[in-house]
């Protein structure tokens, strides 16, 4: 049962936070210190962060700016934006060589190049080879392209983010079609859906993310703590799975 206040019972990693200012408006957090304070309000220990510039304008510039957001305690984990162009892939290759690329994300695949193997082979072949997981926003991708392309690169670990109830018909099929696909839950809230999906696919296929500042950090975290999933599964979804996907145990011990 709930109370009028909330704090999580398990360690939490928010797998989807945007930093920096969108050109549609400034972020509520202008510094890492402000973001960490916001995370503390909701009991979020660590967060996977990417830069708004990488989403809207330039992945390479956004990634450069993201470096300024990394805190000394390692609570903010960088996620690099990428595009299927040489300069972007080269940047990720360099970061990977330095041991700094634990995940990447791809935006705006509705744009100038369909998310099909013929357009993305250079990038997807590279990610397959080095085993870097790829975050993909569902709002940014044609679902048919997504299904076809994920089938063509079955070893890539993908995280589908921002599923809305209008994606409900597709979500289950996408999870069925590719066993290396994980669903981030920032906006996915048809009634009972999380429990049903965890029953069917196992908790390993789901991760908590807020997509802050698009959405507040607290509501989905609160939701996950008020389902009938076990405490072990809750811990996996709230942080354990993200830790595994990013190899954080391994990196923390390096």
């Amino acid at each position, binding site marked *: 049962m*709930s109370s009028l206040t909330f704090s999580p019972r398990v360690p939490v990693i928010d797998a989807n936070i945007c930093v920096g200012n969108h050109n549609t408006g400034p972020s509520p957090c202008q510094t890492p210190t402000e973001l960490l304070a916001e995370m503390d309000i909701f009991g979020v220990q660590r967060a996977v962060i990417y830069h708004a510039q990488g989403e809207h304008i330039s992945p390479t510039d956004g990634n450069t700016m993201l470096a300024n957001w990394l805190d000394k305690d390692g609570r903010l984990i960088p996620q690099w934006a990428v595009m299927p162009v040489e300069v972007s892939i080269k940047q990720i290759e360099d970061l990977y060589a330095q041991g700094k690329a634990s995940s990447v994300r791809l935006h705006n695949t509705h744009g100038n190049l369909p998310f099909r193997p013929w357009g993305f082979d250079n990038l997807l072949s590279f990610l397959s080879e080095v085993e870097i997981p790829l975050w993909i926003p569902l709002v940014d991708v044609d679902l048919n392209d997504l299904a076809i392309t994920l089938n063509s690169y079955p070893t890539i670990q993908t995280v589908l983010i921002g599923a809305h109830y209008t994606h*409900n018909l597709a979500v289950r099929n996408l999870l069925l079609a590719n066993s290396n696909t994980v669903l981030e839950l920032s906006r996915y809230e048809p009634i009972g859906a999380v429990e049903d999906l965890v029953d069917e696919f196992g908790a390993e296929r789901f991760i908590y993310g807020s997509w802050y500042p698009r959405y507040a950090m607290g509501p989905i975290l609160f*939701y996950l703590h008020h389902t009938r999933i076990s405490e072990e599964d809750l811990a996996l979804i709230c942080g354990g799975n993200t830790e595994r996907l990013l190899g954080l145990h391994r990196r923390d011990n390096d």
Partner: protein
Amino acid sequence: MIDGTKVIDFHGHVGRWERYGMTEVDNPEIMLSAMDAVGIDVACLFHIFHPDGTTGNDLTAKFVAQNPDRFVGFAYVSPTMPDRMIQELERAIDKLGFPAIKLYPPYTPWPFNEEPWHPIYEFAEERGLSIIFHTDHFKNNRPRYFEELAPQYPHVNFVSGHSGNVPEARAEAIAAAQKYPNVYLETCSTYRTPGVIEELVEKGGADRVLYGSDMPLMDPRPQIGKIITAQISLEAKRMALGGNAARLLKL
């Protein structure tokens, strides 16, 4: 019940949602399971898929009758069938016992301040009823229309469903609530923008905010999580979660 507060969800639906692949959700057991997991005592439900009103209202009554302590039905009518609109409202309120009205302008050709809607407002004015509207930034659904209607029908409580949903329309809803004591702000939305609940409470007033979920399209748990995790006072949470709704519905 949450910390002694009776929790009332002001926005829920009866009806099937197969269009989105939700084939099992028109089911009181599924709704009650989610409600019980978080302490929601009562959910207000309406059926908006039949313009005659009667078909949906009967389905709502049947749904509510299975758990009359947990569900409250709201009457639905549409001005696209004006000849039966008031007759159906009388039946739904007087015979089915529904305490409030739901209106859904996106399913009509008219903005909700236009003439075809006014017989409904006159009916509600005579009886001092609450009406919840779907509101957003599209022409038919603008919360700014409350600034015309609220002074014209002072005994009607006008509830802005979703509080306008997006910033531009939310500002209109808040402005109307600031000007008129009979305008209320309901909270459900998949746009869970940080600070929205705080904004509604600070600018509109804690006594005007109503928790709603849009169940079963959306689970009531993340939607109530917006209120519980908001940086507002405990008293404001109590009012939004149930105190204000109990006052409006005389529960």
